């Protein structure tokens, strides 16, 4: 089963008890969201206090697993009854929120806009909707911003954050910096200059004439208007972006890298851990999900599996004679062969996983191994079972 004990003797449970923020990250399909929810549920059940899980996954499944109809941008408490139904007397409270990019951006604009006219003009700009709705990095930024807001509110003892499914697993880390760079960029000022002063310098004329031919003047004006409006909020944004970065870098935050032992996600996890190290960000734990049992590597079992294939007929004959109601020897032999073959198949995968694991050289001291659960996690009991496996 799970062996989370690292060389230092620490556990994910201790990590959750010591930190304010756990950031769950990794590539798509490794169970990142479920892992975040499971850690939060387990923390609420065993450590007490108020625990919040912030997800970016709009799946109803997670809401249902938490005993909620749905949850949105505002934090919603998970009913105590859901824990009691799962056979657990919770020591604390579990809250859940889902990041709504558009809503969060609107809130940010309302907060930073210098006046009502600017606020309304931005919210009505044709590009604003596009930028906040589709612009992937804006999603990353707003996720980090929301985390900052929740943390400074002091309403929660522990916040577990699921990170957006970015193309690059670390985009969200750079988002606050990128946002600050963006607003202080000379290019931006250069770009919108003609719309401010109507005087286009000789140096930039070729660009505007080409840009005009490609995109048309109206579109460029929409862009310019958007950024001119946005610049009025520059100071607020940059200040916030820096505060967000300080929070991420501070010792109250820890990163939990989630992966499976398949080649592609494991490579991505390794790459991600390297980037975290380069940024001197603390990797609290590595959670390895969907790991096949180690018993598949057992040599004696492999020998038995081989015999089941090679000696299926005599074994079946003797079993048919001694075991009541097992059935036709020919059919028993087919089953034995299949059992043996299947073992050999899965053993190959288990060996590959074992090799992948030794290659994860950068793994932190704390590695939690979670077995392959054959059934889906459909309720709080399932999340707590997973959480328990991560804890130990």
């Amino acid at each position, binding site marked *: 089963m799970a062996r989370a004990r690292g060389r230092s003797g620490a556990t994910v449970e201790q990590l959750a008890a010591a930190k304010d923020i756990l950031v769950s990250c990794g*590539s798509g*399909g490794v169970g990142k969201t479920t892992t975040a929810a499971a850690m939060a549920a387990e923390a609420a059940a065993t450590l007490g206090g108020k625990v919040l899980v912030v997800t970016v996954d709009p799946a109803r499944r997670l809401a249902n697993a938490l005993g909620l109809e749905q949850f949105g941008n505002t934090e919603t408490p998970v009913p105590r009854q859901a824990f009691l139904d799962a056979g657990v007397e919770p020591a604390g409270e579990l809250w859940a929120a889902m990041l709504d990019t558009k809503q969060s951006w609107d809130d940010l604009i309302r907060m930073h806009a210098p006046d009502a006219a600017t606020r309304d003009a931005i919210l009505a700009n*044709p*590009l604003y909707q*596009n*930028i906040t709705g*589709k*612009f*992937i990095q804006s999603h990353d930024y707003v996720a980090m911003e929301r985390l900052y807001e929740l943390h400074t509110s002091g309403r929660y003892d522990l916040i577990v954050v699921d990170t957006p*499914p970015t*193309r690059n697993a670390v985009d969200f880390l750079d988002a606050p910096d990128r946002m600050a760079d*963006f607003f202080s*960029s000379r*290019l*931006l000022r250069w*770009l919108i200059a003609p719309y401010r002063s109507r005087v286009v310098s000789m140096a930039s004329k070729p660009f505007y004439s*080409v840009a005009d*031919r*490609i*995109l*048309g*003047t*109206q*579109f460029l004006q*929409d*862009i310019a208007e*958007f950024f001119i409006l946005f610049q009025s909020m520059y100071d607020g944004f940059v200040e916030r972006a820096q505060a967000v970065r300080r929070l991420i870098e501070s010792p109250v935050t820890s990163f939990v890298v989630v992966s499976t032992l398949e*080649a*592609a*996600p494991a490579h*991505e996890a390794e790459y991600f851990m390297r980037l975290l190290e380069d940024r001197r960000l603390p990797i609290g734990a590595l959670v390895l999900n969907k790991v096949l*049992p180690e*018993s*598949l590597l*057992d040599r*004696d*079992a492999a020998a*038995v*599996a081989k015999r089941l294939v090679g000696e299926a007929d005599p*074994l079946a004959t*003797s*079993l048919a004679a001694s*075991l009541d*109601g*097992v*059935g036709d020897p020919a*059919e*028993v032999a087919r*089953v034995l062969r*299949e*059992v*043996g073959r*299947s*073992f050999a*198949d*899965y053993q*190959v995968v288990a060996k*590959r996983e074992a090799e992948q694991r030794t290659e994860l050289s950068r793994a932190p001291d704390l590695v939690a191994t979670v077995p392959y659960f*054959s059934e*889906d996690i459909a309720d709080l009991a399932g999340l707590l079972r997973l959480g328990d496996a991560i804890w130990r």
Partner: protein
Amino acid sequence: MAERPHLLDRRLLFVTGKGGVGKTSIAAALGVLAAGEGKRTLLCEVDAKGHLAEMVGAPALRFEPTEVHPGLWAMAMDTEESLKEYLRLQLKVPILSRIGPLARTFDFVATAAPGVKEILTVGKLAYEVRERNYDLVVVDASATGHVVGQLASPVAMSELVKVGIVRQQTEWMLDLLTDPATTGVVVVATPEEMPVSETLELIERLDAETDIDVAAVVANRVLPELFGRSEEEVFDRLDAPDGRAHLVSATGPAAETVLDAARLAVDLRRSRAVHLSRLRRSLPEGLPLVYVPYLFTRSHGMRTTRQVAERLGEELL
């Protein structure tokens, strides 16, 4: 509805799916299969993660396509390179040195105004199709969450940009993308809850938000069925305490481990079969569902790609 054009008879295929389902592997296998059928094929990786190069056993890919196997070319999308090429071809911008800072500025605008990067991606691919440089272009596209934005970018662009060259460009792109004989989307899913749900949602969204045809769904990594029904009864009997005791006395104590592993395999297959049948039941009528088995031997590399291509070939050709 008219008969669906055959997958490999189309000219532009976008392969997508939830992260982690093996869409790069399927895209590479489709490319290998098509090239094996004598089609001049271009494979393009959109999210520069470098997995496609691994799948076709090639060194790192660049924007300039390289022939990685006879008849099979591969490239990595780079929007800045795409912009340079576009300017060179469309605007006849003569002085290359000017393009450096221009491209940087443009990249900046592209970051600010969504859709620009997407259209430079889709535009380059559509261009290769229009110019008939290849018989088939297979795109390892963005994951389900982003692919609609990518495919709908010409529409979004034509709404934002009312005049100018981009506006004219979006028109021929749309003609090409919305013709089912030319363009199709291949959605890859594994028989698990979230990948199946995302696949069904994506098909609905593509139908609602674009006029682009879904060509096929690939169920990837389908676990083998160990037993038929009567065999399963035999297995249950062997797995019962007295059955186990008999097998242990015949082959040794490690037989317990072997039976545990078989039980896990049966359970995994069973839980996945539920999602597979949900996928099958919920797909629009007439949409082909192609099965690719779980490969126990390897999960990446050219050898795997060939095996997947073979299986796709058995189902498609």
